């Protein structure tokens, strides 16, 4: 039986994914045209689906692919009740990115979420609207801030160049992924000391809702041995 494996369709994430599987004795061999790939494991076949990073969580959630490679940030953000839908098979050690809350460096009085909450209350009283936090990770940020007891903020959607929203006056703070912090610094932003929402990395997932018949389970067992997953 063939297991369908969704992997990122371009860029460093795709290259690193190929490297990761190759290093575990599972070289991925290109077949047919540029866009077609296939891989084989001692008798158990794995069919690759090249998908955009954003599609992989969705395909995993509904079980159209058995396995998938994507960042843990996207899985947690995009799949409601992700623990019921997917199982972590292996953190892959690349694609590291931290989802953090950051505020302007000029806010010398703000270094924690506690400060952010107090400032949000003052901001609302003074400006008449809730302090705006720009992000594309709405669910993760909202849950994180609720846990921390931060109130009187408003999430504004930002699908790109989120760091620039503060300078442009469309947000007061941001919640975004950063790998080195350089972009934040260049935009006059700093991370709150307790502002780490999620430490993300590329991860190999198993879709619980995919079809797992005897054939697929056998193929999975072979793959598990090969990849030394358990």
């Amino acid at each position, binding site marked *: 039986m063939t297991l369908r494996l969704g992997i990122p369709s371009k860029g460093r994430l795709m290259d690193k994914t190929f490297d990761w599987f190759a290093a575990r004795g599972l070289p991925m061999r290109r077949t047919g045209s540029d866009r077609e790939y296939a891989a084989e494991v001692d008798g158990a076949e794995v069919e690759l689906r090249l998908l955009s990073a954003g599609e992989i969580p969705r395909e995993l959630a509904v079980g159209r692919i058995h396995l998938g490679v994507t960042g843990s940030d996207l899985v947690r953000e995009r799949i409601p009740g992700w623990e019921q*839908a997917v199982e972590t098979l292996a953190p892959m050690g690349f694609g590291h990115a931290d989802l953090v809350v950051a505020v*302007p460096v*000029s806010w010398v009085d703000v*270094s924690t979420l506690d*400060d952010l*909450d107090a*400032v949000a209350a003052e901001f609302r009283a003074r400006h008449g609207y809730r302090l705006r936090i720009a992000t594309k990770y709405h669910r993760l940020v909202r849950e994180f801030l609720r846990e921390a007891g931060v109130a009187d903020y408003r999430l504004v959607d930002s699908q790109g160049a989120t760091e620039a929203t503060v300078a442009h006056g469309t947000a007061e703070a941001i919640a975004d992924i950063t790998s080195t912090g350089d972009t934040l610094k260049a935009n006059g932003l700093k991370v709150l000391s307790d502002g780490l929402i999620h430490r993300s990395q590329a991860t190999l997932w198993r879709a619980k809702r995919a079809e797992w018949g005897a054939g697929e389970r056998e193929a999975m067992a072979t793959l598990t041995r090969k990849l030394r997953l358990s």
Partner: protein
Amino acid sequence: MILKADIRAEAETLQAVFTRAGAVPVEAPLLLSADTLLDLYGEDIRARAYTTDDPDRGEMMLRPDFTVPVVEMHMANGADRPARYTYLGEVFRKQKAGSSRPSEYLQLGFELFGGEDPARADAEVFALFHEALKGLGLRPVTGDMGILLAAIEGLSTTPVRKAALRRHVWRPRRFRALLDRYTGRAPQPAGRIELLERVAAKGVDAVLDAAGPESGLRSRAEVAARIEKLRADASTPPIARAEAEVLTAILSLKAPLPDACEQLRDMSVDLPALGPAAERFADRIDALAEAGLEPTELPFEASYGRTTMEYYDGFVFGFLAPARADLPPVASGGRYDALTAIMGRGQGIPAVGGVIRPEVVHGLRAGGRS
């Protein structure tokens, strides 16, 4: 399979209790302005309400609750008029992934605006719900957010600290963290002492200059003003242990109403500001007795309603199915004077009311799972 028509019939039977008591049936729109709801409930409402877009009116939400549109309707027709309303219609709530709870269901409600005598109004509402739900074997529970709010008001500390505690009264963990800091049991947040030392050594302007250019809408003056507030707060003496202990005692208070009242009166020796709230509590007990209820059979839990009922600021109540922890409360309600004041831009009206979930009542009567 449970038919919607059966649930509606059940709801209409229940509603007759409210109309007999003089409540005027009212309707409310299904699409509500997202801005109004977000301003009242905060960003968390997005996790619970369905959002949609209107090309002209902007972001809208499918009615998650009747309270806001009913208050809006009442205020639009002149706020200072007493009124009793009842409503019955669909509400929409997102449920957690995998939850078996419905995401659209009928909500039946009763709201009482005005009333010279808040104790009597509270008792009237509670007695009506008690009557509508009798025979179902439900466990009533009552609480009073006003007690906790009065206790906060009575603390010997600065208005800034009281405001912070009041603001987080519905977020128990955050409330506890603030209280621990204000009593000196927990340290200042990371970085604050260091900031205040730098400011003391170099002056506010030098510290702000060193931080880099201003960006965003929060101005340098706002930052400087908050630093001033932090300096004042750092030299504020801690809240006395005895006062904080009264707060803790209130939060864990669980007793039948008359007992609870006695305990609150005892506590007001240590925190005199609690006195008037305890007397209002006693008045409510009398009013409940006058309405035909037996106060010794009504439990009081001071923390009830603290996590789920954000806008209630006085009497709160619920009716729970004792053997069915899987079910949401069959009914819940309370007093929300402050909400009407916010929505009426300062011009409020005393208001108390509650809702019943007819589908849960129907399920209990049918003896099956709803």
